[in-house]
C-alpha cells in the first residue's frame, strides 16, 4: 500500500514540481518499489495523453486577434 504522502509526491514528480532533494529520494524509492514504479508509469501515460489532447483554433480567429491589437496601436 502506497502512503498518501508518497502518492502526492508522485503527482508532483510527474508534473516536475517536486523539490530536488525530495525528487532524489523518490527516484531511489521508484527503483526499489515495483508498485510505486507502476503507479508512476500509469500516471505518466495518462498525463502524456492529456498533453496530446490539445486542439488548435482556426487561423482566422488568431488573425482577428492580431489585427485588433494592431488597430488599437494605430489609433493611439
Amino acid at each position, binding site marked *: 500500500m502506497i502512503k498518501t504522502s508518497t502518492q*502526492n509526491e508522485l503527482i508532483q514528480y510527474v508534473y516536475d514540481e517536486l523539490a530536488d532533494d525530495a525528487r532524489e529520494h523518490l527516484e531511489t524509492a521508484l527503483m526499489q518499489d515495483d508498485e510505486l514504479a507502476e503507479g508512476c508509469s500509469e500516471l505518466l*501515460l495518462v498525463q502524456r495523453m492529456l498533453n496530446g*489532447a490539445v486542439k*488548435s483554433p482556426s487561423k482566422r480567429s488568431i488573425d482577428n486577434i492580431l489585427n485588433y491589437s494592431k488597430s488599437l496601436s494605430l489609433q493611439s
Partner: protein
Amino acid sequence: MNTTTQQSDSALVSLYIAGNESAFEQLVNRHKNKVYTTILLIVKDSYTAEDLMQDAFIKAIHTMKSGRYNEEGKFSSWICRIAHNLAIDFFRKEKRSPMITLEDGSNVFNNMSFSEDSAESLQIKEDTYARLRELIQTLPQSQREVLMMRHYADMSFQEIADATGVSINTALGRMRYALINLRKKMLNSNIAYDKNLYSE
C-alpha cells in the same frame, strides 16, 4: 529575423506594452492552443470556443495596453484564467446543456497534427482523444477543475490550491484521483491504451 522567439513571456509582455506587435503575436501563438482547449473543454462547442478565445485575448490586450497588467503571476496562468472565467460566465448566461458542434461533422480533435503517423494510427489517436475529452467531462467537478488548471492553464499545484481555497495536499489528491479515474474509465471503455501510441 524574429528576435522575440526565445524571449520569456514576461519579456514579451513588456515589449508588447512598449508597442512591439510581433511580441504579442509570439505570445498568442505560444498560448493559443491551451487557451482554446481550456474553453473548448468547458463550452464543448467549437464556434463558441473560437469566439470566447478571441474575447479572452482582447480582454488581455486591453489590460496590458492600459497598464493594468500585474507582472507578478505567469502570463499563461493569467490568460487561461481569463479564458476559464469567460467560458464559465458564458454557461451561466446561456444556462444550456453542453453540445458539440463542429464545422465538418468530425470529432473535436480533428485539427490535431500527427504528421508522421499512418492513416490508421492517426484515426486511432483521433478517436482516443475524442473519447478522452468526453471522459474528462464525466469527472467530478473538483477533479476536472484541478486537471484543467494544471494541464491547460499551466498553473502550479500551489497556485491551484490558492485559487480554489484548498490546501496543496487537497489539490494534489484531486489531481491524483482525476488521473486514476480517467485511467479506469479508459480501461472500462475499451479505449486504445497502447503505450506505443503515446510515446514521444
